[in-house]
């Protein structure tokens, strides 16, 4: 008897939870549009956003210990203003010693990186990578001119 009730309860509860989770078509459209328009307006590709996210994590983890997977980076629109929203679940702030240590580590890592680059500079693969990244940078420039990054003025009034 108890089992039957339990089963029924789970079914009913499950039903409501499902209904809650399911987003309607309109909200899906609005949310998808918001994201795609932010990309259109700023010309920031998902790859660039991901890169920005990575660099922000690197910088911020010097000062705080955080849940890196839960970090959220989004564009949001409020009226005519666009904002970059960063939400970081902080586990704990680091103390001064740790920050100093982290700084030293980064310095060490950077100098090591530099050495590596100097060593590998003459290799072909590296040269290719460099030229590729240059091309990307060049391609980005004319696009930016076209884009409507500037906040909308009240022309429509």
């Amino acid at each position, binding site marked *: 008897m108890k089992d039957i009730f339990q089963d029924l309860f789970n079914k009913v509860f499950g039903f409501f939870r499902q209904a809650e989770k399911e987003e*309607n*078509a*309109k*909200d899906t*459209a*609005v949310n*998808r*549009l*918001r994201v*795609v*328009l932010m990309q*259109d*307006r700023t010309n920031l590709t998902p790859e660039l956003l991901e890169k920005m996210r990575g660099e922000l994590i690197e910088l911020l983890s010097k000062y705080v210990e955080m849940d890196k997977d839960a970090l959220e980076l989004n564009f949001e*629109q409020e*009226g*005519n203003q666009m904002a970059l929203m960063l939400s970081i679940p902080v586990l704990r702030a680091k103390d001064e010693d740790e920050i100093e240590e982290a700084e030293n580590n980064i310095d060490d890592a950077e100098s090591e990186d530099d050495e590596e680059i100097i060593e590998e500079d003459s290799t072909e693969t590296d040269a290719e990578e460099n030229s590729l990244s240059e091309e990307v940078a060049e391609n980005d420039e004319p696009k930016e001119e076209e*884009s*409507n990054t*500037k906040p*909308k*003025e009240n*022309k*429509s*009034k």
Partner: protein
Amino acid sequence: MSGRVIVITSGKGGVGKTTTNANIGTALARAGKKVVMIDTDLGLRNLDLLLGLENRIVYTIVDVVESRCKLKQALVKDKKNPNLCLLAAAQTRDKTAVTEEQLKNICEELQKDFDFILVDCPAGIEQGFQNAVAGASEAIVVTTPEMSAVRDADRIIGLLEAKEEIKSYKLLLNRVRPNLIKSNDMMSVEDVVEILSADLIGIIPEDTGIITSTNKGDPIVNDENSLAGKAYNNVARRIIGEDVPFLNLEEDNGVIAKVKRFFSGLIGKEK
């Protein structure tokens, strides 16, 4: 006289630019304004069909710029309304047959004789768009509550913002389906306005009457009983400067509601 030059544009095709053009033009003419419409969709002209003028076209805009006729000779008068004229696009040429400068000159010339010059813009953001926008100082961006149409409208708004000549632009939301909005299956008017952050000049409900009116070559604003026709008429009145509230599209169309409205209308008239 210096008429207002308004370009009607959308980015995406098939959202109702030409229908909007035909109806706003006709409504403005019915309100006593002198109106000329320019179809700049070279090679894909359709405005003549919507107005039922396809058999009357002798000269096109390309004939004007290539000096085969005078501008006034190329203007086709509407069957019903002598206030309304059409400058048709050439069907056999492409977008390069007319330049931005030439269109600008034509608009300036027409401003002397008309209150309103409505420019029907082709779909896309290429040269055809640039040409159509060249002579205009105002714009109406047509969109529908669909993702692709809103995205393209956003792009068009960005391009219009960058044009110094365009002093103002307004949004016209076409093919709105109140039932789908009510059931949360379609973006609402508020959603689209918020996303695009632009001023609204009209909300046009989806209306099967548009199909029959297009088939007949008679714009739906000529049909007094049509809701879409009413909505387009209101757009024209707002363009003229009247303060007209937006139609309530969620009107109950049941028999009882109609009877109620009939009686409340009678009482309203008596006052």
